[in-house]
C-alpha cells in the first residue's frame, strides 16, 4: 500500500519535472493549445496581427519606392522647365540671329526628349506615370507626344483598412494631345515657333508660351506636393508599423514565452521534492518485520 502511494507520488513528480524541463529547454510556455487555451488563442491573434503588420510594411516600402522614383523624375522635369524658361526668354529677344534661334530650338528638342525620358521613369518593371497600364511606356521618343498610358489609380494598402493612391498620371502633367496646353504641347509649340521665326510666332514666345510654362510648372509642383503628401503618410505608417511590431512582439513574448527565472526555480524545487520522495521512499520501503524476527 505504501509502495503504491510512493509510486504514484514519484510518477506525478517525474511528469511535473518533464513538463517544467520541456518549458525551460524550448523556452515556450505553450507547447500546444491545451497548455493554455486562452493564451494560445491570444497568441494566434497576435501572430496574425504581426503577419499583417509585416505585410503592411511591404506596402509601405512599395509606396516609398514608387513615390521616390516619381519625385526624382518630377524634380528633373522641374529643372528642365526652368531651363526651358531661360531659353524661351532668350529666344524671344528680337536681336537673335536665325542660327542662334535654331540652336535654341535644337536644345529645346533635346530637353523635350529629356522630359519624355523622365515621364517614362520606372519603378521595378512598371512605368510610374502610366496609370494602371503600367507596362506600356507612356511616351515614345521622337515627334509624336501621344500619352500611351491610362488614368487609372495605383493603390497600395499600408495599414488595416488604409489604402492610398500613390500615382499621378502622365497626361495630367505632361499632356498627350496637341493643343492641350500641357508641358509637352507648350514645348512643342515653342520649338515650332522658334523654327518658323515669324514675328507673330516670336511674339507668342514672349507671351502665351511663357505663361503656359508657368502654368505647366504649377502643374508639376502640384503633382509633387500630391506625391509629397503620399510620402508623408507612408512615413507615418512606417513608424506606426515599427511601433506596432515592438508592441506586438512584446505581447506575444509575454503570452507564449516562459518566464525563465520562474520556470528554472520551479524546476529546481520540483527536483528537490523528487529526490526527497525517492530517498524517503528508499528508507521506508526496505525494512520489514522479517528483518527483526529471529
Amino acid at each position, binding site marked *: *500500500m505504501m509502495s*503504491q*502511494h510512493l509510486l*504514484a507520488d514519484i510518477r506525478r513528480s517525474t511528469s511535473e519535472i518533464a513538463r517544467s524541463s520541456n518549458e525551460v529547454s524550448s523556452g515556450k510556455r*505553450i507547447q*500546444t*493549445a*491545451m*497548455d*493554455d*487555451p*486562452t493564451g*494560445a*488563442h491570444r*497568441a*494566434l*491573434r497576435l*501572430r*496574425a*496581427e504581426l*503577419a*499583417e503588420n*509585416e*505585410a*503592411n510594411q*511591404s*506596402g509601405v516600402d*512599395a509606396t516609398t519606392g514608387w513615390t521616390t522614383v516619381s519625385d526624382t523624375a518630377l524634380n528633373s522635369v522641374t529643372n528642365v522647365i526652368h531651363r526651358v524658361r531661360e531659353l524661351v526668354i532668350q529666344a524671344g529677344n528680337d536681336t537673335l540671329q536665325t542660327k542662334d534661334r535654331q540652336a535654341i530650338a535644337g536644345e529645346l528638342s533635346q530637353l523635350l526628349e529629356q522630359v519624355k525620358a523622365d515621364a517614362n521613369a520606372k519603378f*521595378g*518593371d*512598371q512605368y510610374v506615370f*502610366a*496609370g*494602371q*497600364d*503600367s*507596362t506600356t511606356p507612356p511616351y515614345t521618343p521622337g515627334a509624336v507626344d501621344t500619352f500611351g498610358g*491610362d488614368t*487609372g489609380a*495605383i*493603390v*497600395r*494598402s499600408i495599414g*488595416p*483598412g488604409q*489604402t492610398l493612391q500613390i500615382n499621378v498620371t502622365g497626361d495630367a502633367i505632361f499632356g498627350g494631345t496637341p493643343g492641350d496646353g500641357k508641358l509637352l504641347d507648350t514645348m512643342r509649340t515653342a520649338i515650332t515657333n522658334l523654327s518658323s521665326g515669324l514675328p507673330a510666332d516670336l511674339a507668342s514666345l514672349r507671351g502665351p508660351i511663357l505663361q503656359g510654362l508657368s502654368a505647366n510648372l504649377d502643374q508639376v509642383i502640384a503633382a509633387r506636393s500630391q506625391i509629397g503628401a503620399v510620402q508623408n503618410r507612408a512615413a507615418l505608417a512606417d513608424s506606426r508599423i515599427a511601433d506596432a511590431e515592438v508592441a506586438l512582439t512584446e505581447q506575444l513574448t509575454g503570452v*507564449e514565452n516562459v518566464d525563465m527565472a520562474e520556470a528554472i526555480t520551479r524546476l529546481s524545487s520540483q527536483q528537490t521534492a523528487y529526490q526527497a520522495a525517492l530517498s524517503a521512499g528508499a528508507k521506508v520501503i526496505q525494512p*520489514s*518485520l*522479517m528483518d527483526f*524476527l529471529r
Partner: protein
Amino acid sequence: MAQISSFGGLQTSLRGLLAHQRMLDVASHNIGNADTIGYTRQTTTLTAAPGIAVNGATSGATNWLGQGVDVTSFNRMRDEYLDISSRTQNMLLGERGTTAEGLSRADAAFGEPSPQGLNALMDKMWSSFQTLANNPTDTGARAQVVSDAKNLTDAMKGVDARLAQIGTDAATEYAQLTSAPGNKIGAYADELAKLNDAISEAVTGGQQPNDMMDRRDLILDELAQFGQVSVSNQGFGRISVSFGDASSPLVDGSGTTSVATWPQALTNPGGQLGGLIKVQASINDYRSQLDNVAGTLASSVNAIHGTPPFFTGSTASTLTVNVTASTVVAGSGPGAASNDIALALTALRGSTGDRAYQDLVRQTGSDAQNAATMRDLSISLVNDVEARRQSVSGVSLDEEMTDLIRFQRGYQASSRAMSTFDEMLDTLINRTGRVGL
C-alpha cells in the same frame, strides 16, 4: 447430568491444535497470494465449542465446561461500500483517461501555435495577396499566391486527416472491445455467467468458494474500467450485472442458469467505452467546424476573386486551389497594374474564417485541458480508494508474520496442554493402585 470423560481434556487440546494449524494454513495462503491481483485476504473465524453441563460435586449446581475451539468459517475481508466506490472511480478514470488521450491527440493534430500551423499558413496567404497587390505585374507574386494557397489547403487536408484518424482509431477500439470476435466485454460476460453458476452450486452445497468469488470480483473490477457496472444480489451466491446503459442485464443471474447477453447497443456507458464514444463525438464536432472554416474561406475568397473561382470544394478535405499563376486575378481593370481584387482579398485577413479557426483552436485546447484535469483528479481519487481498499482486503506481510508467530505459539501451548493431560493420565493409569508395591 453428564459425566465427564477423563479423556475430554485431550479432545479439547486437540481442537486447539487443529484450529491453530488451520489458522497457520490460512496465514500461509495469504502470504502466498500477497501479490495475486484481486486476492482478498482471508481470516479464520473461531468460536468456542459449546460447553457441556457439569454438576458441582457438592452443590449440585449446573456449570458449563468449555470444549475448546471450533473453526466456523474462512472469511474474505471485503468492504462492499469500498468495492462500489472503487468501481465507480475506476469507471470515471477509464472514461476520463480515454477522453483526455483522444482530445490531447486532437489538440496535437492542430499543433498550434506554430509557424507551420494553419493560422500561420492563412496569414502567409493573406500576405502574399498583399504582395500581389503591391506588385500586380510580377508573375513571381502570382506564383507565390498560388503556392501559399496550396500549402494552406494541403495543411488543412492534413489536419482533417489526422482528426479523422483519431476518430477512426476510437471507433476501431470500440469495435475491438465490444463486437470483434473474442472481444473483452463478451469474454468477461461469459466468464461471469460461468462463475455465477459455479459459485451458486458451491454455496448451495454449503461450501464457501472464496477464491472463485475473488475471481468474480476481479472481473467486475476490470469490467468497471470499460463502463458503468452495477451488481444486484440474487441470493445463493448469484448476482446480476448491468453494464452501462445497455437495455438488458449483461449477466442475468435470476434464473437457475445465468445468462450473458452481449453485444448490446450503448449510448452513454461511461468508462473507456463512454470515453471512446465521447472522443468520436468531439472529433466529429471539430471536423465540422474545420469544414466551416474551409467553406467560409472558399466562399469569401471566391466572391471577390470572381472567374475563375479561386478555390473549389467547401470542406477541409476537398478544398482545392483552382487557379494557376497565370489565372490568378489581381485586378478588375484592363491595366496591368490594376490590383483592386488583390487589395480586397488582403482585407479578408482576420475575417470570419480566420476567427472561426482561432476559436476552434481555443475550443480544442480547452477541451483537452479540461479532460486532462479531470483525468488527473480521477487518478488521485482512484489511488485514494484503492489504498483504503487495500487496507481492508490487501495482505500485509507484517501482519501475517505477526499472526504466524501468534498461531505458532498457540499451537505450542495447545500441545503443551495435551502433554499435561498425558502426564495426568500417566499418573492415573500407571501409578494409581500401586501403593506398597
